[in-house]
């Protein structure tokens, strides 16, 4: 069981969700974050106060999947989030020590497999 973390552009979040749905990856958490990954800074001016904004809005996907689904999840994130410009984001895959479904107490593979699958 792996945890796939994908950090993507907020405007591509819907495309990623759609791609994940097509790949039959069902369990997803997302959060709005700010980050910096080497893209150009944005310059903003408010009444003469000029600032460089080094942090860009991003959306972080956290998806726990069984090993068979890791590649499909990565492909879906890439296909959904890619624009070809700097700032498209990153994907990190980390091993999961345990996963538990609270309702039933199922662990690991059972916990990350969608109900009815």
């Amino acid at each position: 069981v792996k945890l796939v973390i994908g950090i993507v552009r907020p405007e591509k979040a819907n495309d990623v969700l759609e791609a994940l749905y097509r790949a039959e990856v069902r369990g997803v958490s997302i959060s709005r974050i700010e980050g910096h990954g080497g893209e150009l800074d944005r310059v903003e001016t408010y009444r003469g106060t000029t600032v460089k904004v080094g942090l860009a809005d991003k959306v972080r996907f956290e998806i726990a999947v069984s090993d068979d689904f890791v590649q499909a999840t990565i492909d879906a994130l890439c296909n959904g989030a890619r624009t070809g410009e700097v700032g498209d984001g990153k994907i990190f895959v980390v091993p999961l020590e345990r996963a538990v479904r609270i309702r039933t107490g199922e662990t690991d593979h059972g916990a990350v497999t969608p109900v009815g699958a």
Partner: protein
Amino acid sequence: MMDALNLVAAAQVDTGDTAWMFAATALVLMMTPALGLFYAGLVRSKNTLNTFMMCVAAIAVAVVTWAAVGYSFAFSDGNGFIGGFDNAFLNDVGFAPRDGSTIPHLLFFAFQATFCIITTALVSGAVVERMRFGAFLVFAALWSVFVYAVLAHWAFGPGWLLDNGTLDFAGGVPVEMGSGFSALAAALVVGARKDYGRQALLPHNAVYVLVGAGLLWFGWFGFNGGSGFNTGNNSVLAFTNTLLTPACTLLVWFLLDALRGRRVTAIGAATAIVVGCVGITPAGGYVSPGYAMLLGALVALPCYGVIVYRTRTRVDETLDVLAAHGIAGFTGILFIGFFAQLSWNGASDGLLYGDAGQLGWQALAALAGPAYAFTATYVLLRLIGLVMPLRTTEHEEALGMDIIQHGEEAYATGEGAILVTPEAGVEEEVPVASAG
């Protein structure tokens, strides 16, 4: 001898009328920022400022074009289609009243300027979230002169609709149908937002929408109540009808919402206020209070229908200017043809009171106004499109117009923002921001 005396008397400034028109002019000017708030709440948060700024820009551009030639094209003598240059650059616009009015000509000009501003701002609702700001400025300048001023000449100035007796109290033809059908043309030329029909594009702040609608209604008392240019009976009637009609529209809208979705919606209510105000705009000074209430109930039906239908089409007329203004204005103009009463308005009867001819002229206005607005706007935008791109790139549209067009955010947090000192300039390397 008596006639000569009467003419002199008629040409005098009335202080009561003038005092009211000061207030009315300021009320109508406030409607444009109110519209900005209304529109800004309806778009996504990344486009808040750009949407509001289109309304602010309409004030900047339309006041200048109106003072230069717009007012003259609308209100000076010319032919039935368009006025001449007699009042261009405020020539002959002074303290003496315009013929037939009791307020200074200069104040009449200012009041009419606020109408040109709000109408220009209204059209922006069709193209928000993707039209370039620069292209909109050019469009607003040309549109205010070649579309608004022409339609205002037809209905208000010595134009062919006014000369033939079409009744349009506060601008059903130039303001409401003018903006509504222009908005449809603008949406077709500029094209849909890239996410339209693919993603749910939801209003980001319903409270802005409600506050904006409330302020619009407040301002509309100046808009309709001031369109008699005096404090006489027609003005009193229009003022009070501006209270009665939208209330009835609200109730019917509640009912339609409840029937369709089992719930009464807040954004629906804000829309209903606008629809009701628009409906009574042309009819304000011409129909009885009872009929104004009937109009309020009736006007909800076609507008509600068009809003529901439009979202099922590929036409991204984003903020439904056609439904809320075009269709409501159309309904109001036609309504006069049926329900106008000489005993209330001192001008003319409608079909129900024996004058079928009035209905004929109302119907002609209801066809000619939209036809000109749509065609002229379509051609105008196509021409501008030959010279400059009308919309931003897909990439910029995705990032949001606030950052791309204005370099600001509506809801800046300051997190990650590094102050650039004026001496250093923005070009200097800021070590903290470089990739680690």
